């Protein structure tokens, strides 16, 4: 049980690994630096102040948060089943789940239209019975983002669940905890770092989602035009403005992630 706290061994990072780690970091960061150098900083404030930009930003954040919420609610249980179920064919199901990752997002958007559109498999009934039409609405943005982002959450959480020691669940059962209670009070806290990693992936992917959103939800200011859509369209006419918009998106997401992750990780890291 005793784990030495003021670790003698430092971080235990082999120096050999520092080289690839630094390269990896540079690889991910340098292109952004390239972007920064080209940014017309003077315009940043102006862009940030534009109501259309603020609107798109707000919409992006709200829909990404909602999408992440949906993914957590549906995805964590799914990850659980995948990690634990021993039924045959589970491996195939697991592979199927990665498909939305592979599917070019635009095709994903088409698939969503075919399912939930006005003439879609399910959508036509929604439309006939309830007069409900999802495309071109904010819920459609959330659905598109959730569809694209959920596999990230599921796969990350599943990995964490597989790595967790199941005997703690046994211990909980002997203390009278049913499966649900065990899940909430023991398993979830134990895999919290994994869930947090998955949620970050999911949120970031949802925030950056473009193809499926524009295809399924369309692009209308204030309703479905998220930041990536605004960036893409700006790119058509004014690449510099697009870069500024992209930077705004990045800054906001860094701010959100720094604050969120900070909170999540405190208290759950071992």
């Amino acid at each position, binding site marked *: 049980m005793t784990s030495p706290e003021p670790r003698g061994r430092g971080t235990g990072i082999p120096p050999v690994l520092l080289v690839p780690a630094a390269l990896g970091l540079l690889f991910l960061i340098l292109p952004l630096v390239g972007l920064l150098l080209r940014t017309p900083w003077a315009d940043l404030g102006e862009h940030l102040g534009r109501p259309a930009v603020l609107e798109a930003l707000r919409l992006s954040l709200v829909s990404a948060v909602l999408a992440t919420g949906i993914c957590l609610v549906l995805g964590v249980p799914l990850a659980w089943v995948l990690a634990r179920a021993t039924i045959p064919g589970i491996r195939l199901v697991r592979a199927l789940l990665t498909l939305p990752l592979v599917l070019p997002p635009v095709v994903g958007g*088409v698939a969503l*239209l*075919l399912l939930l*559109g*006005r003439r879609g498999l399910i959508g036509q009934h929604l439309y006939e019975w309830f007069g409900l039409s999802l*495309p071109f609405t904010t819920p459609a943005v959330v659905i598109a983002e959730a569809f694209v982002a959920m596999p990230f959450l599921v796969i990350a959480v599943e990995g964490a669940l597989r790595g967790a020691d199941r005997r703690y669940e046994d211990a909980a059962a002997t203390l009278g905890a049913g499966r649900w209670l065990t899940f909430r009070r023991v398993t979830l806290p134990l895999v919290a770092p994994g869930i947090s990693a998955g949620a970050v992936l999911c949120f970031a992917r949802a925030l950056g989602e473009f193809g499926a959103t524009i295809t399924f939800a*369309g692009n209308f200011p204030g309703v*479905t035009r998220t930041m990536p859509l605004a960036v893409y369209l700006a790119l058509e006419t004014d690449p510099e403005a697009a870069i500024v918009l992209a930077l705004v998106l990045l800054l906001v997401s860094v701010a959100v992630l720094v604050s969120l992750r900070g909170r999540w990780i405190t208290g759950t890291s071992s």
Partner: protein
Amino acid sequence: GDDGDDAGSGDDSSENAEDADAGADSDADDGADTDTDDEAESSEDADEAAGGVSGDIVVFGAASLTDTFTELGEQFEAENPDATVTFNFGASSALAQQIISGAPADVFASASPATMQQVTDEDLAAGEPVVFVSNRLEIVVPAGNPAGITGLEDFTNEDLTIALCAEEVPCGAASVKVFEAAGLTPAPDTYEEDVRATLTKVELDEVDAALVYRTDVIVAGDSVEGIDFPESGEAVNDYPIALLSEAPNSEAGQAFIDFVLSEAGQTVLGDAGFDLP
């Protein structure tokens, strides 16, 4: 977008069109052997003339040209067995960005004068771009026209689901002009990223009507119907093509441009629904 549109076409296009006609005539009649007669003016090596142009030709083309340019490329290669045409299709804006970043391209065929302008502004075009086709808008509705669309006025109906191209892309800019000309304020539900996305919405019957290019209505086939409207002439979108100043194979690149402007080339483009300049 407006300035670019007007500035782009004009004299250049007519001038070059003549050029092209000359070339096209000989092409069509005499085949490969004679097609480089005109090129010889711009190129020193007379001995190359025998086998036509050779080498790799890299053409950056707007995605909407995928079908027609692929066909043109095949014809060109048939006439110039030593030449290989390689296409890089993508959004015009992305292609412009690539060229500015030093892409090894010979020819750029853009879907809008504005994106071509980005390239010429960087002095990357050799000579003036030439408008080789133009495209006009058409109303597109799902097969059977379930919403009973008759004209542009229906686009103001709040109860209908309408898709338009985003103002930032060429077909959206054209749409704006069309509605200005008609004195209407449309009530769209979405501004699509490009023509293709707009068309998909109609094909899947998700919207009741949209404005797209005529070429796209033709490509979409039976799943949609096109409805002409009088104001479409107010916003013709020109497609400029240009040889690039840093072209690795400028001679062959010019030959390809000439071929596009030739009668054979123009026929292929015309069949696809483009307006010829």
